[in-house]
């Protein structure tokens, strides 16, 4: 019997164990479709999009100069002139929030990038090489993880001094263990797959295998983690600012605004309320989106 040339017809799932893996474009298209079905994720995406838009358009949409002090008009409640009122120096809260979005998103993104870069690198190396390399790296990660909550970030800031840049570094370092663990875990699973052995059998270098073959395949959990971590980073940075360890005045960082506003909870609650809501909303958006993304990327969650 001669070998038939098999026409590749539209093939669906063939066995129940099959995981949905797809081509680059097709894959993201599928993820997008999946996401679109998740109403919560759509809401999250809208929120995130809105914030980014606001951050980009800040100079054009902010009604006032966020730093313009106007002591005569201080502590005004929301009005037509000042939709969110003014703060204790008469600055327009809305304008400050709008500009603050740039800071919060920048702090969040940069620190997540820092954390992701080092975390992914460490996780990949630990997971791929295993043995003592793994032990050394993971012990180091354990040490970082042994600092509860934002304490590590606080310790770092206490050494570097408070500033937004240092917050990025501190929160970045604080995020390293999370990424390292996720990546290592995925790596352990992925490196056992036969395609990795197949590539090794072809004589590919470790670097080639890790970067070209494995990394793209474990990217989903990294993306999901990145989104969720962004939320945490924004919260942590705000917390540090709240403690006076973050953004320096007069910068309209939300945590710092909140910290300022707490003195006026009684007389002018709007000053603390709006930045609080702004933080809660973006964090909510990121969480919603991250969750949706996780579901969309997770083949098991298909209902």
């Amino acid at each position, binding site marked *: 019997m001669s070998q038939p040339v098999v026409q590749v017809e539209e093939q669906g799932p063939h066995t129940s164990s099959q995981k949905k893996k797809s081509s680059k474009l097709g894959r993201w298209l599928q993820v997008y479709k999946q996401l679109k079905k998740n109403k919560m994720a759509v809401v999250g995406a809208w929120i995130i999009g809105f914030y980014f838009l606001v951050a980009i358009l800040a100079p054009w949409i902010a009604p006032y100069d966020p730093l313009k002090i106007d002591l005569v008009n201080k502590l005004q409640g929301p009005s037509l002139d000042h939709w969110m009122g003014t703060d204790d120096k008469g600055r327009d809260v809305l304008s400050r929030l709008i500009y603050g979005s740039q800071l919060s998103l920048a702090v969040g993104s940069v620190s997540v990038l820092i954390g992701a870069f080092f975390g992914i690198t460490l996780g990949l190396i630990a997971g791929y090489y295993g043995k003592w390399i793994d032990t050394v790296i993971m012990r180091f990660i354990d040490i970082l993880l042994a600092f509860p909550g934002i304490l590590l970030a606080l310790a770092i800031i206490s050494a570097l001094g408070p500033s937004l840049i240092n917050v990025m570094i501190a929160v970045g370092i604080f995020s390293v263990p999370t990424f390292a663990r996720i990546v290592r875990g995925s790596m352990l699973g992925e490196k056992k797959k036969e395609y990795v052995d197949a590539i090794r059998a072809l004589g590919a270098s470790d670097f080639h295998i890790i970067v070209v073959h494995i990394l793209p395949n474990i990217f989903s959990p990294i993306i999901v983690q990145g989104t969720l971590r962004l939320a945490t980073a924004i919260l942590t940075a705000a917390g540090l600012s709240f*403690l006076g360890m973050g953004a320096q005045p007069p910068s309209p960082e939300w945590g710092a605004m909140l910290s300022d506003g707490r003195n006026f909870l009684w007389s002018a609650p709007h000053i603390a309320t709006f930045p609080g809501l702004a933080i809660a909303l973006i964090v909510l958006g990121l969480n919603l989106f991250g969750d949706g993304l996780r579901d969309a990327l997770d083949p098991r969650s298909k209902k």
Partner: protein
Amino acid sequence: MFVFIIRRLMQMIPVVLGVILVVFLIMQMVPGDPAVLLAGESASKEQVAQLREQLGLNKPLLIQYVDYVKDVATGDLGTSVRSGRPVAEEIFTRLPVTVELAFWSILVTTVLGLIAGIISATKQYSISDVSIMVVALLGVSLPNFWLGLMLILAFAVNFQIFPVSGWGSFMHVVLPAITLGTAGAAIVARMTRSSMLEVISQDYIRTAKAKGVKETYIVYKHALKNALIPVITVVGLQFGALLGGTVLTETVFAINGLGRLIIDAIRMRDLPVVQGSILVVSIIFVIVNMFVDIAYRLLNKRVDLN
């Protein structure tokens, strides 16, 4: 199991040494000379030099580290620059407060989280599921310092049900514990839910159904115990977040615990106190995590016990 506990204890040692090292190194990066600080503003150069000698600041870093580890091992965390009292004393007068706060908060986290998670999972896609999950998401998203302020505004100022701040009675605990426990409760609820749902889709649940076991019985007997296993780890990790959160919560509620000690010490550049208290909190966390690990092993017998 015994071997495991011993091994886990031994594993703690390098982690604790590492934590000490990290704290030690970070504190080395702090600008300013500790001797100058400790000597006080009016001290002469000679006095400072003498103090440097006395504190061993002239020695190589590594020796300083080893000395510090030795001191820590004997319970000597140094002397507070600001108050002149031993750091250990400063810490241990505040520790009970933070431990109590942490206890109530973790209670809020666990109890609330578990109940919500179980309801949510068993009534998947129902109104209560959706609303619990929405609330849980909010809980994760609210900055806890803000939540604390809002709770004060609402329950202490407007309704005057609870005291604004301070410590001592049960009433004092309520608002801070809620503030601190909420985020964790939300996370535990989500984790419980997904873990429950995951377990419910397992083969052995199908086996139980094939035996004719009742649905509720399946949930509480077959699923819950398995579902709790990953939840325990999450609770352990939440405990860490919670300990870190005390810094903020204690500031908001003016509770004189370790968290505030740290923040104050950072503000005052009281480095021995910063160093010591971060160390103590970390060690507590490491110990708690060890217990969590052990509990996890006990529950999850599938994990290789070697």
